[in-house]
């Protein structure tokens, strides 16, 4: 099965880190992704620009409405994702446990709907 791991970063926890700690956290993100790639289970991964750079679109009564910023103002902000191949949920959860985003926010794990 394929699973989507989404990273949701808690701004408060991130802000509390020293520049050195932030740098080492970044390195951990890179090594986590590399380890997934090397073990052959990585099917895709992307890292997003900060949430405040988002533009949100809504169609209302024929009008296109734009909002500057993310769709909801929440403590944990969607920051990136990985798609991994895993035999079952437990294996996918182990990857999530290894993911540094789980230390400074949360990692949501969801199976992808396999078409066909």
């Amino acid at each position, binding site marked *: *099965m394929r699973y989507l791991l989404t990273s949701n970063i808690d701004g408060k926890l991130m802000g509390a880190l020293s520049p050195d700690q932030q740098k080492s956290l970044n390195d951990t993100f890179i090594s986590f992704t590399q380890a997934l790639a090397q073990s052959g289970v990585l099917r895709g991964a992307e890292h997003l620009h900060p949430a405040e750079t988002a533009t949100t679109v809504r169609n209302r009564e024929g009008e296109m409405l734009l909002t500057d910023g993310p769709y909801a103002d929440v403590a944990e902000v969607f920051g990136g994702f990985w798609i991994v191949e895993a035999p079952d949920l*437990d294996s*996918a959860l182990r990857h999530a446990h290894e993911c540094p985003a789980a230390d400074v926010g949360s990692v949501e794990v969801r199976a992808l709907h396999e078409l066909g």
Partner: protein
Amino acid sequence: MADPVGIGVEAVYRAYWPTLVASLARWTGDLDRAEDAAAEAVAAACENWPRDGIPAEPAAWLQTAARRRVLDRIRRDHVARAKLVDLAHRLEDSPAADAISDPDDPFGAVRWSDAAAEDLLRLVFTCCHPALAPSAQVPLALRLLCGLTAAEAARLLVTTESTVAQRIVRAKRKIRDAGIAMTVPPRDDWPGRLDAVLAVVGLVFTEGHAATHGPALVRTPLCDEALRLAALLRRLLPDEAEVLGLSALLLITDARRDARLDGGQLVRFDDQDRTAWRWPDIDRGLVLAATAVQRAGARPGRWVLQSSIAALQVHPVPDREAVLALFDRLAAINGSPATLVNRAAAVAKARGAQAGLLALDEIRPAPGDHRAALLRAELHHQLGEYDVARSHLTSAIDAAQNDVERRHLEARLTDWSRT
């Protein structure tokens, strides 16, 4: 009517239900199909057995009936034809258990082949997977492991049948769609996974023993289901200290069931009529608790510690310091508000009311829990501080959600108002 041990059709099929579902779940790889087919086989048994007698091998009878129904269903379902071929090839693989010989405990009588036990263990770990919410795990366990219908489970949990049915459906869908594997987890993952299993059994028992809401304090049938689950785990995992500890705790606690109520009124532990306790169960619990301690070695878990505490507490003259020492260890590994309040009570018994109040001061009470306020009230009362005691008792009454418990507290308030 043939009834090998005179325990009735329901007891017989319930004894075989968990292995029936478990083996169907492995065979079909699909909990839905397994549950439906097991239910249909049981319905057929309820129809046929009273008329024709209970078959000599009830397990084999139920397996055959259920597997025939799975195949019938699939035959009617074009899409699933391919699966039929696969299942037909595996039709011969081991059905589960056989004859009942001793009705003493619900499963003690049923012999499980290793394969049947393995199937059952897989089902237990699946129903109690930590990725499922407790509100899903409990109804799923009551349905698939205890063999209750959604209506029966709803009655025990004091909710509606549709709520329970929905939770079961959602849980099964999550198991399927999220890819929760129906496997026994690797040994390395056992501590956490077994914790989740034991927590489900503990939750079923707690909800039965001290119902958090509603008119009755004790929901006896729910306690019975928890004891049944504990017995099942003990059969499957006889060497796990925590399983033995949980079993011991439930037996010792449940043995006091009849003494906790007197004419609909709650009776406090210290005031209970000890002759109304079921001593044979307590004795069995004490033996299990002792074995659990031995198996646990240097690092007893929460259930071993709790069963040791329960074992000490039924002694006519409990060793208060030993109880407190166990509570200290328990609080170190499981600092839930309930544990900390109970620890404060143990502090008060060992070191006096003032020390108990100091221990209470360190706890942040859980919202909606009346027990911290109640203990505070009792301790102030012991110290002769009656006004403070009454005001805390009033807070406890406001927070209590169970009708029997609230009546008990209100009666005490009336009593205290005279002092």
